[in-house]
């Protein structure tokens, strides 16, 4: 069995320092509704919101059984612990909120996800610096491959702490037979506390770790992303050298996360980015402390990628939403991934026909009536277009 990243959800503020961070960057009411999140920690709220998005794309109806959870986090309880500590010392332990107290357990974001979606296969939390999210995704892929889970929610979540930016990335990891998506070709975890001292200054020197990482992808063009939460990019140079020696042509992936500003979420922002680009990809992270994690992906060709948004860029999506809002005569904000055309947006058969015609005109494709009849939500429109629009 192979494991694929069937969908991803990324929720993180587009800022570069905590000082720029707006207090209301994440609106729980928008993601989670008016109730049910009051006593959950911020990191847990982010994770639940991401799960809603990622799961809808793969399992729009009921979830299959045998799901697992695997989450990385490094900073999600520091602020909470500080607040509880102050209450304890100034007012005594009776003043602590019993409903909030479980959040002191760093495994609670993962456990709340398991509780919300009744996931029984396993519930794991990794807490190492920078790489814990990548480790969590690799573990999920391994469990799915071994048949110990049918699917797993795997990712990372962080609350803003000191200079660390908040955010969440969550993947649905499942078998290739279950859903399309880039295949996890392999991974590697290691420890390299002082790379230059250990391996010498010459980047051309034989480096077993870099060579092992380079074997995760085939020769030819590969999307590549590296992150480090410190100034040392030594491993980056070694990996690039090893890739070049193997005949890999590195395609830079611009984007956030390379400086580790989002802690364990950072490498996963990069992973989500490369997972939406066709072709093989490699994501490598090295923490200041010395943890190293790497993951290789092989994306399906465009024709295999039929079910979910992958080739269409964010700009395409915005354009589709704008066109639909115009045809359906609704506010574009109402056209979310979850909004049901009939139940939520009031689409009837006539409007559906109108939409099919508009899409055909705009994208130069032909959409059959029965195809249009099966479309119920935005992700399905995007999938349909992706199937039809030549890459």
């Amino acid at each position, binding site marked *: 069995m192979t494991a694929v990243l069937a969908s991803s959800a990324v929720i993180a503020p587009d800022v570069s320092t905590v000082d720029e961070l707006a207090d209301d960057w994440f609106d729980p009411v928008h993601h989670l509704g008016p109730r049910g999140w009051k006593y959950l920690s911020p990191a847990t709220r982010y994770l639940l919101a991401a799960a809603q998005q990622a799961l809808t794309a793969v399992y729009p109806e009921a979830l299959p059984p045998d799901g697992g959870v695997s989450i990385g986090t490094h900073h999600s309880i520091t602020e909470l612990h500080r607040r509880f500590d102050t209450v304890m010392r100034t007012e005594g332990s009776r003043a602590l909120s019993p409903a909030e107290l479980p959040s002191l*357990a760093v495994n609670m974001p993962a456990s709340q996800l398991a*509780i919300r979606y009744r996931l029984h296969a396993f519930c794991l939390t990794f807490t190492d610096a920078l790489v814990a999210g990548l480790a969590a995704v690799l573990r999920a892929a391994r469990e799915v491959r071994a048949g110990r889970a049918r699917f797993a929610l795997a990712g990372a979540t962080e609350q803003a702490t000191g200079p660390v930016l908040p955010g969440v990335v969550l993947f649905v990891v499942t078998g290739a037979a279950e859903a399309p998506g880039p295949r996890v070709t392999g991974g590697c975890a290691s420890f390299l506390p002082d790379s230059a001292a250990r391996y010498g200054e010459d980047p051309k020197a034989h480096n077993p770790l870099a060579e092992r990482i380079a074997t995760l992808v085939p020769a030819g063009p590969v999307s590549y992303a590296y992150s480090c939460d410190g100034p040392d990019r030594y491993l980056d140079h070694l990996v690039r050298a090893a890739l070049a020696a193997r005949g890999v042509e590195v395609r830079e992936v611009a984007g956030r996360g390379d400086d580790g500003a989002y802690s364990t979420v950072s490498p996963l922002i990069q992973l989500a980015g490369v997972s939406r680009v066709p072709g093989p990809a490699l994501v490598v992270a090295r923490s200041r402390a010395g943890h190293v994690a790497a993951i290789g992906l092989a994306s399906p060709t465009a024709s295999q990628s039929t079910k979910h948004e992958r080739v269409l860029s964010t700009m395409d999506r915005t354009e589709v939403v704008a066109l639909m809002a115009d045809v359906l005569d609704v506010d574009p904000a109402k056209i979310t991934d979850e909004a049901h055309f009939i139940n939520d947006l009031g689409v009837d058969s006539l409007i559906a026909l109108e939409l099919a015609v508009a899409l055909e005109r705009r994208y130069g494709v032909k959409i059959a009536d029965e195809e249009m009849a099966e479309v119920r939500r935005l992700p399905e429109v995007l999938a349909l277009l992706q199937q039809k629009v030549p890459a």
Partner: protein
Amino acid sequence: MQRAVVTGLGSVCSLGTGTSRFWGGLLAADTGPQSIVDSAGQARRAYAVADRDGTGRASTMAVSAAVAALTDAGYADGVCEEAGVVLGTGLGDVDGLEHAYATGAPAPADSPFGVSAAVATRIGATGPVHTVSTGCSAGVYALGLGPDAIRSGEAEVMVVGGAEVLSWVAFGGLEGFGLLDPQVCRPFDTERRGMLPGEGAAVLVLESLDRLRRRRVRGYAEVMGFGWSSDGHHPTAPEPNGTQIRRALRAALADADVPATWIGAVLPHRAGIPVNDTVETGALADVLGWPAPVFATKAVLGHTAGAAGAFAALTGALVLRRRVIPPNAHVTVVDPECGLDVVRTGPVPLASPYVLISGTGFGGNNGALVLGGWPV
């Protein structure tokens, strides 16, 4: 598939430093909590280690136990470059933060979750390094992830275990939940009223069978199987039927290919919290199908949270090496609902060289291990 054999042990806890003090404390079965003052000036009862100087003590204790375990396994100066590290911890080096908040000293800038990195740096590890924080079952999960790396060929040596330091905030939380016994941790007593926190680090060195033969070293025990499950039920309460605990136990037995009747001793999570104890022991009795001998460490060690499962594994390795089961401390009247054989005087001989370990935690993270004896 490579088998994972325990070749070294290290321990720091309220019973003292080193495995002989640990084992001696289990056999003596007479220690309890001490009185200790928390950061708000309140007197607490806990199983604290003797040397409480400095901060970042989860890391300090883990490093000390890891170096001792590697030395025990025959690695000079506790250095092993090929090793990977998997440690369980609930709150990591949270003592540094609590000390800073109480004294007004600057708080450490790093997250408290640097325990595995500290150990990896000290022992020179270059293998996979992970910190697993699945609450109070983290130690059991570390003992599952470590052998997985050896089985898959990812590493030949894994340094695994757990470390936990007393946290006054966690103490207050447990008090808020009404989970603290006012006297002593007494998991098998019918009058038990809750748990009492402890602190320490337990570390085991696991090596592949090939490597063990190559190095011609002795083994304590083999990690034969592990199983995981998630209640997906409630943040703090166990799922009342123990369905998922049963599944983890059965998975571990199946993974080890050991029938339930072969189990010579059960080392449960059992911490003294009445409802959790009843659910867990019910699942154990049901899966085993017979009243196997049972021993819980927490009466003399306290509840060491993320390290508890590692202490159970350490105990299991020693039980298999010494072929005896220590007596349970602090039992006046045995809990009538406990369907297992509570060892009260002893030590008693181990009838069969297989040990079943169970771990549960807040959030419903269940784990189970099967250890097997190793020829001396």
